[in-house]
Every structure is written in structure tokens, then in C-alpha cells.
């Protein structure tokens, strides 16, 4: 996916904004709407039984069986430092294909609910505002304003490979 590579390398350069255009799957997490590239999504599934793996950080929920493959599952709320919530009927696991250390790996993310698929043009995507040093902004692709609402676009490769993520709550306010 060359376009992702481009934008991931130079997320701040305005000239690259066209590289960010495309289809995004948006989902909810607490009060926010996030988006990830549809190309990264392999499957959306309802919540199923997750086998916990001992000695792992809280945001790693464990592993699931995806048609014979053992796939790790991350709770994105906990990963972003948002307080945990009860899993509901709307809670889903989005199975993404991300770049691992050596090859592409499947990883599931638990989100509060999947919203829709948006087709975003380059003009609709803005660069993330500078928050100063405390935000490790390079896992954000940008922000999109659609019908008056802000969607935070994530570089899911970076999100899942970064160990420590700062509290995203400050972002929207």
C-alpha cells in the first residue's frame, strides 16, 4: 500500500495530503470517532471469547481463533488510556493487517462500535494540529471534518507497533 507508506513517512507535509485520500472505516471509541484505512481492514466481527494471555499489559486482551489462525486482540480504549467500558452488543473486533517486525501480521482491535465507510478527498483531510511535544503525533494521519463532525484518522501500523501511547482525550478539546 504505497500511499500509506508515503503519508506515514511524512505526515506533516501538506503536499502529501492527497496521499491520504481514500476510503476509511470509522468507528467509535468513547465520545470520539476514529478512522482507519479500509485497505488495512481484513474483517469486522462481533465480540467473541478471547483467551487471555498471562503476563501481558492490560490493553492486550488475548488471542482469538480466526478461522484457524491465532490472532492477538488489543483493546483500543486501554491502548489509548481511555477508561475501560463494559462490552456491549455494539462492541466489535476489527481485524487489521499491519506491518509486523518481519512480515504482515493480523491483529484485532476492540472498538465500541463500527460506524461507516467514508470516502475522503484530500481537501477534507487536515493535518493534525501541533500539540507540542507531549503528543506522539506520528501515529495520526490527520483529521477529517465530515458534516461538522471531526474524525481522527489513525495510522494503525504505528498505533499497534508503538508501545506507549499518550492519552488521546486531549486531542479533541
Amino acid at each position, binding site marked *: 500500500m504505497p500511499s500509506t507508506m508515503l503519508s506515514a513517512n511524512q505526515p506533516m507535509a501538506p503536499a502529501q495530503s492527497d496521499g491520504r485520500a481514500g476510503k476509511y472505516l470509522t468507528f467509535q471509541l468513547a465520545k470520539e470517532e476514529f478512522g482507519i484505512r479500509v485497505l488495512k481492514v481484513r474483517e469486522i466481527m462481533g465480540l467473541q471469547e478471547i483467551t*487471555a*494471555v498471562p*503476563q501481558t499489559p492490560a490493553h492486550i486482551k488475548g*488471542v482469538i481463533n480466526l*478461522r484457524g489462525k491465532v490472532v*492477538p486482540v488489543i483493546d483500543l480504549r486501554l491502548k489509548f488510556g481511555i477508561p475501560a467500558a463494559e462490552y456491549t452488543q455494539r462492541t466489535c473486533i476489527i481485524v487489521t493487517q499491519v506491518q*509486523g*517486525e518481519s512480515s504482515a501480521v493480523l491483529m484485532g482491535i476492540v472498538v465500541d462500535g463500527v460506524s461507516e465507510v467514508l470516502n475522503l478527498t484530500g481537501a477534507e483531510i487536515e493535518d493534525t494540529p501541533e500539540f507540542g511535544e507531549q503528543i506522539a503525533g506520528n501515529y495520526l494521519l490527520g483529521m477529517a471534518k465530515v458534516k461538522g463532525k471531526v474524525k481522527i484518522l489513525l495510522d494503525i501500523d504505528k498505533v499497534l507497533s508503538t508501545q506507549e501511547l499518550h492519552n488521546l482525550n486531549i486531542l479533541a478539546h
Partner: protein
Amino acid sequence: MPCSADLRQHIEDLALRLVMGGPETAQALADWISAIQAIQKAAEAEKAQAVVAAADSAIQQIRQASSLEDWDGDTPMAGLPEAIARLQQALDAGMQAPVAADQSIAQDPELLADFALESREHLAAIESQVLILERDPANTEALHATFRGFHTIKGLAGFLELWEVQKLAHEVETVLDRARNAELAITPAATDVILLSADSLRRWLAYVELRLHGENSQPPAHDQGLLDRIRGLYTTPEATAPPGLATLATRVEAGGAEENTPQPAAPISPRPETMAVKVDTAKLDFLVDMAGEMVIAESLVRHDRELAAVKSPQLQRKIAQLTRITAELQRTAMSMRLVPIGPLFRRMARLVRDLSRQFSKRVELETSGDEIELDRTIVEELSDPLMHMVRNSLDHGIESPQERQERGKPALAHVYLKAHHQSGQVVVEVADDGRGLNREKIRSKAVERGLVPDDKPLSENETYNLIFLPGFSTAEKVSNVSGRGVGMDVVRRHIEKLRGRIEIRSAVGAGSSFLMKLPLTLAIIDGLVVGVGAERYIVPLFSVREMFRPQAETIWTVQNQAEMALVRGSLLPVLRLYRRFRVAPRSENPLESILIVAEVEGQRFCLLVDELIGKQEVVIKALGETFKDVTGISGGAILGDGRVGLILDLDRLFKEPNSASDF
């Protein structure tokens, strides 16, 4: 190559003459020989090695044919067209490529890789056949098989322009050819030289393979000494054996066999090569994986509650059929990864031969169960431990011929390599009829090294198991083969890595035997599914010794800290799985739990779990890099209900009990 046109002309003349009519008299035949000799000379001047070699073999063919007493004019004719054709081929090959072996190696890498692979197979076959010949020089079948091996390598090497290889193979082939014609006896000197040549060819193959992998490597040095030794075999005692009917018979037989040369010796490979397809191992692994998935999916369907509610005999039949097919599919897929253990055994034959000479002992290797099949990886990984044990056997186990005779045993000692199936596993045994393990000596050595306290009573088995401890070696003097103290502990680690177990049996004066119990495959294990709280874990069954519900007097707390369990008279450390993994157990009371006695690297310990759920065969899945820092878990597996179960890594669980860090 300026005079290649001339050379070509000569050869084409010859071909034309053949078409007009071959030699009909002995005189005409001599003309032919001199004509080909002229070509050979010209080729030599041009350094067209392939042509030289081809001419050489053509001349020999004619000479052999003409030496027959009852020559009727047809016999030499049979080989001539082929010989001329080969000359032409060699000329074409020589025209296209430069002579230096080094440059030509850059040619078609696929062909070269195939060549290396095939030649290795031939060399392995050659080696075992030569060893047969050594014992039984009159074994014509082994002789023919050896000849065919070298002949094929020669042909392939010539095609790929590996002239050094071709030359060496050609010289050995000449020796063997003389032997086939009963003009030369297979002496120990001859077998030595043939084996050395095989080694030399192996070095070439290693070089070819290195180059194929893009590594820089020097070609093996030209070994004129070896070539001279080979030539010495057939030049000094000038071909004197009277040709006769007997030789004719062998020739006819050999000629028949030669026509389908790429076949290695029939007794070596039970499966004809023409029926085999080479497949990428990654594809094979994927197939095995998918077959495993299919079994799981099938089991999920079969046990589905809604489906079970449907009472239809027809559906039942269909599902039963599906089950049968899935099981068959998985078995077939698994069997594709399996290879017979025979070739590995035969590699040991060479080791036994060389070592028995080195130690001046008379040893014969006997194998059985060569056809038993194991996972490829297991067979490969078994090579080192097996080699080690065979060495130990020859060095320590087997007595010198004198000592044996003094004890009333035959001077000829035996080493046995056996394989057989036993309850779903394969047992590989390395045994000898030597002096057996000396319990006293082992014990005193272990005490001396501080490996065991002086006064501790040890059972027979416990004593034998001492030799698996790191740093143990009973060799009185360190030889260059064994006795460096790195032996048996490494062997055991290897075997356990393969999820196997090793046991020792020994009788003083009658010999010892090392039994390795190995799984058929590494992709599947027999697991014991246990429950801790809401979680389920899989304990590899090969490490489980026993399990029971503890009594009040079973569990002891030592100094208010470490918990020990009294099992069959020995105190074993207890690991409460729920504490280690920080999960809420159903009960913290050990009397309501289950103790599993497990053994890893000779050490036993107890694992406390809530309940036993059952035994299941599971396909092992890696958990991936997300969990690479997790200790005590070796992988995951899909359980019968479709959920993932975690497979315990008992070794690390026990050895790193405190690594449950700050999460």
C-alpha cells in the same frame, strides 16, 4: 578456440563413417580407436575438457568391447553411435562456454541446485554401497550400484561443465568398470580411495552450494594425489584377467542397467525417483496447516448443538463421511512431511567404519526399521545426537578385540540402530554389545564432580541418568571423538527439543542401549487440557508423568515459602499455576485441586491446577511477535470448541518461576 572447426570436422567425419557402416573387423576397430585418439589429442590441445573425457570413454568402450573373444561385430557397434553422439554434445558444450570451472558455476542456478541435490543423494547411496562392497567384495549388485552413482554424477557434472568433478568421477568410474569386468579386485585400498573420492566430490558440492547462495568460496584444490591414487588402482596391475563368458554376462547385465542411469541403486531408494515431485516445503507446511484447520472446522460442525438436534440418519451418514475424509486428508498431508529414517542410519555406517579403524576395534553396524518414517525436521535434528551416541558407543562402550576375546565374546562387535513404532510414537534405539555402563564408575565420577551427594542412594535408572548432567564424562582420557564432557547433556537437550524422551538400558558385560522416544511430527502434540479458573491450558502430554488429587499430607511448606509435594518418596517443588499466571482459581485449597507431576530435563516438579478437562491432539500455532516476551507459554492451539488454548512451556515455567513481572 581457433581449431574447434577442425575438431568438429573430425567428429563429424567419424559420425558420417558410422552412418556408412561401423567397424566390422578387429582391424577396422583399431582404426576407429586411433581416429578418436586423434580427436582426443586435438581436444587436449584446445583444452576442451569435455571432448577429451568423452573421447576417453568412447575409446574405453570400444576397447572393452573388442577384448571379447567371441566378438561378432555387433557388440561394439551398439555403443558406438552413443559414444559419437556424446562427443558431439561435448563439442557443442565446449563451444559455448569458457573452460574455467569457476566461471561456469554462475550458470543456470536451478540446474546446479538440482545437480547438488541429486549428487548428494547419489553420494549417500554410493557410500552405503561401498561399505557393503568392503564387507563383500563379490557383491556385484553393490558394485553396479556404485558404478551407476559415479556414472550419473560424471554425466551431470559434464553437462554443467564442472570439469574437476567430472574428471574425478570418471577416474573412479574407470576403476569400478574394471572391477565390474573382473579385471580388478575390490581391495580395502580400493574402497578407501572410492570413499575419499566421494568425500572430495562432497567438498565440491558444498562449494557449488555456497556459490549458489551467493557466498564467496574457493573451489576445492585440485587433488592430484587422489587422482594418482585412483589411477594407481587400475594402471599397475595391467588388465590381465582373462575375459570370458562370465565377464560378458556381467557386461550385459550392467549395460541394461546403465541405460536407465538416473535411477540410483534400486535397494537404496524404495520409491522410484520418477514418481516423485519436488515441492517447496513452505507449500507443504501450508497444506499441513490447512488440513489441521479442516479437522478443527469439521469437529466444530460435528459438535454443533443445533446440528445435533437434527435427527436425520441421512445427515448422520453424510457427517460421518465428512469426518472420514477429513481424517484421511490430514493423515495424507502429514505423511507428506515424513521421510524414512534409513538414509540417516546409513550416514552412521560411514562413521562406524572410520571410527572402528581409528580405535582399532572391529565393529559392524546393523540397522533395522530403515523404512520407519518421521517428520523431516526430526530426522535432520536427530543426526547430531545419533552421531554422538554412536561415537560414545565405539569409544567407551565397545571393548578392544583382545578384551572381547578374553571375556569370551566374539571379536567382532556390533552397533545397532533400530527404529520402530510404539503407541503413536517412534522409538529410535542406539545399542551396542559392548561392556555396558559401569554404575560404580558413573557414581564415583558424579560424586567427584559434585554432581550428586556422596551418601545419596541411587536407583539403577537414577545412576544412568547422571550421564545426562552437564559436565559429566567418564572417559579416562580425552580423545578427539568423545569424552569432552559436552556429550550426553547436549543429546538430551536435542531430544527434548524434539519433544522426545531418552532412556537408558544397560547390562554389565552385555552392552547398553539408548532409547529415544520421538513424536512422528512436530506440528501436532498430544495435550492434556487443564482448567484454572475460567482459563484452559494445554500441558504437553510427553512431559506428564502422573496426576492425582493431593491428600492433606502430600503438600508441605518449607520455611513458610516454598511448597513441596511428597510424591513416591521424593519431595518435588510445587508451582501453583494460578499464582504464576495471576488468574483467579476456582479454589485455593490444594485438596480441591489436581497435582500434575511433570518432568523436564530429568527434573520433576508439580503443577497445581483446578481440574483436568481431557486429552486432545492439537495443532500447534505460534502466538507471534506480540507475545514474544511471555515466558511459560510456547504457543496456542484451537481447542475442540473453537476457542484458543495456550500451550504451556513447562521448561521455562519451572526454571523462571519469578519472571511474572510488573504487568
